[in-house]
């Protein structure tokens, strides 16, 4: 016997220092080893059959798009407890800004012709500024008030987009140039995946920093937070504006990927409700809950849509009911289920590894 029996027992637990560093670094941006594995799988998927079919790729893109929205939405709803009910309108702002900046078609007055690669960032900025303004005006008061104001503003914005026909062509919509010349979906997938990772990493860095601590403090006891020198409104406004910025960015992607843009399809309250449902079923306050749920959600919806054409909207009813059930009975959502399962597995595994001393070989 040339191996120490005690080391034998500990082997499954400790590994080399490099692994620890990597895990820790990823942990700082909210990516667990499992999450990393899933991310890599998703990234590889478009190159693997049957996932490299065009329609499946579209579903993957839709999933990533919805997931990215969920992250930005959860940042506000889960961390400062404000439901941005005008979220879809923020996407619209980004989309229209970028689309209009890129326009070279003669049927509109303005033809700046700026490349969407820059345009989408301008769109993000615009959405962020509007979010900043809205936040400054409404976040002094209770969450429900800000939510309703955001909702009203969203309605007004959608109405504006529909009515300023000389600028936006109203309900006929715009047909902005796409980001890439190719018809292949794959590069777009990597673009949106990149955006998703960018948003996820950024927001995780924020929530795990002292700013995130301030969010928590405000949520737990607002007076104590104030007494500690934290200005709740400032932090709320920062959160809201950042979330809106990313919404605008995603709107830009939408415009220059789908190449078609109308107020109803992007800015309607029902679109916000979809993101909201994903976030809540997935588990709010986790940032990853909505993303994880977004992919199966899209796949399920699209599958039902193509196979159960005689029951339109069934999937939506199912999700609505699911969301209500989650809210009443299991507010932690699917992420709560995951943590519970993870804890169970952990206790099971640790029991197998810690044998009492006299039973060790």
């Amino acid at each position, binding site marked *: 016997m040339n191996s120490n029996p005690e080391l034998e027992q500990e082997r499954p637990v400790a590994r080399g220092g490099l692994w620890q560093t990597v895990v820790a670094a990823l942990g700082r941006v909210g990516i667990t080893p499992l999450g990393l594995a899933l991310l890599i799988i998703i990234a590889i998927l478009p190159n693997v059959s049957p996932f490299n079919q065009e329609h499946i790729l579209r579903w993957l893109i839709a999933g990533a798009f919805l997931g990215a929205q969920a992250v930005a939405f959860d940042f506000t709803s889960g961390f400062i407890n404000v439901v941005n009910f005008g979220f879809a309108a923020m996407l619209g702002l980004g989309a229209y800004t970028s689309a209009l900046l890129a326009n070279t078609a003669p049927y509109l007055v303005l033809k700046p012709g700026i490349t969407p690669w820059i345009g989408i960032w301008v769109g993000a900025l615009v959405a962020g500024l509007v979010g900043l303004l809205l936040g400054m005006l409404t976040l002094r008061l209770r969450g429900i008030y800000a939510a309703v*104001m955001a909702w*009203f503003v969203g309605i007004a914005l959608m109405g504006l987009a529909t009515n300023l026909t000389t600028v936006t062509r109203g309900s006929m919509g715009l047909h902005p140039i796409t980001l890439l010349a190719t018809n292949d979906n794959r590069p777009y997938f990597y673009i949106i995946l990149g955006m998703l990772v960018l948003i996820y990493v950024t927001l995780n860095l924020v929530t795990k920093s002292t700013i995130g601590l301030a969010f928590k403090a405000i949520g737990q006891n*607002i007076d104590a937070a104030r007494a500690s020198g934290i200005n709740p409104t400032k932090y709320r406004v920062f959160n809201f504006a950042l979330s809106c910025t990313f919404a605008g960015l995603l709107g830009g992607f939408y415009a220059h990927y789908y190449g078609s843009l109308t107020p109803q399809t992007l800015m309607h309250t029902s679109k916000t409700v979809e993101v909201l449902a994903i976030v809540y079923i997935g588990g709010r306050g986790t940032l990853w809950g909505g993303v994880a749920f977004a992919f199966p959600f899209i796949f399920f919806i699209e599958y039902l849509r193509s196979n159960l054409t005689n029951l339109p*909207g069934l999937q939506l009813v199912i999700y609505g009911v699911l*969301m209500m059930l989650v809210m*009443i009975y299991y507010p932690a959502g699917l992420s709560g289920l995951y943590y519970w399962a993870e804890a169970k597995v952990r206790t099971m595994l640790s029991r197998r590894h810690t044998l009492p001393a006299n039973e060790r070989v």
Partner: protein
Amino acid sequence: MSTSTIQLPRVRQAIKPSSRRNTPAVVVGVLSLVIAVLIGVIGGPAQLITTLVTGGIWALMSVGLALIFGVMNIPHFAHGESFMLGAFTAWLVFAPLNRYLQGHPSAFLSVVAPFAGMIAAVIAGAVIGVVIERLIFATLRHRTKEGWIMNAFLLTVGLSYVLTNGATLTIGPDYRGVPQYWDVPPLQFLGIRLTVDRLVAFAIALVVIGALWIFLQRTNTGRAIRAVSQDETGAQMVGINLDGIQTLTFSLATATAALAGASLLFMYPAYPMVGLNPLYYSWYVVMLVGLGNVPGAILGGFIVALFQTATQQFFGIAWINVIPTAIMVIVLLVAPSGIFGSEVKGVQEQ
């Protein structure tokens, strides 16, 4: 909820709970009067009639919403779906009757048939209201009171989602309407044409609102409803069954919204998303006058109808979702508790 006895000075006191001068209310009041005059002069009395009819319906919808806010502390996002249910129920009852009447004309039946639809809508609304309240809100209430307002709001968002998509699924997305309820020539007076359908809708709205008012002010149960909206603990202490009152209130609100939908079937055909505008407008009203303010909601219904008609008149119907909303946003920025003040617990403090 600031209601008290029915005498006129009390009503004023009830609408304006604060004794200091209420600038936003004055501004809005003056603005409304100006708009009303403009509409009457430029658009003609026909437009004013439209405003009154619409106002009556918004008032009916908003009273229910205000009650739900005040008594149950729920921001009810699915209130428009109650309107939709009423419209569908009325259509389901009236359309076959109407078809029958084509082949077998009967003076009696043609007068009564629309009412049959409306009564069916009220019953359907009341029953569905009870079911929803017991199944959903009572359950949430008994599970957790934490973060109630937000949770209840999101729950109603989910409910709205389920109901609209469920309607699309079961009944279908097509518009189901009727061109008119009563096949009689419109009334003519003072150079104004007024269709009987609209007159009846307006009359129903007034009668129901009046009945509701008397119910709330004079009856034991009505008083109990107001009590619950003011102090839940106090209400329990005097022997009021909170759960029962909550169910009653929600059922009442759903039934009145359903009636609104039914009475306007000739104007708004029944389809899954028909509740969207009534939802928006009743929310505008309630936020404008202050959450939970029932008498204010009645007045507010007419004010918002004024804004709506004025927008239609001077800017075109396309702007109907922009300008009233923009006005709402501005008013709320200036007076977050609404122009008449809010009585709803815990919505404003931060």
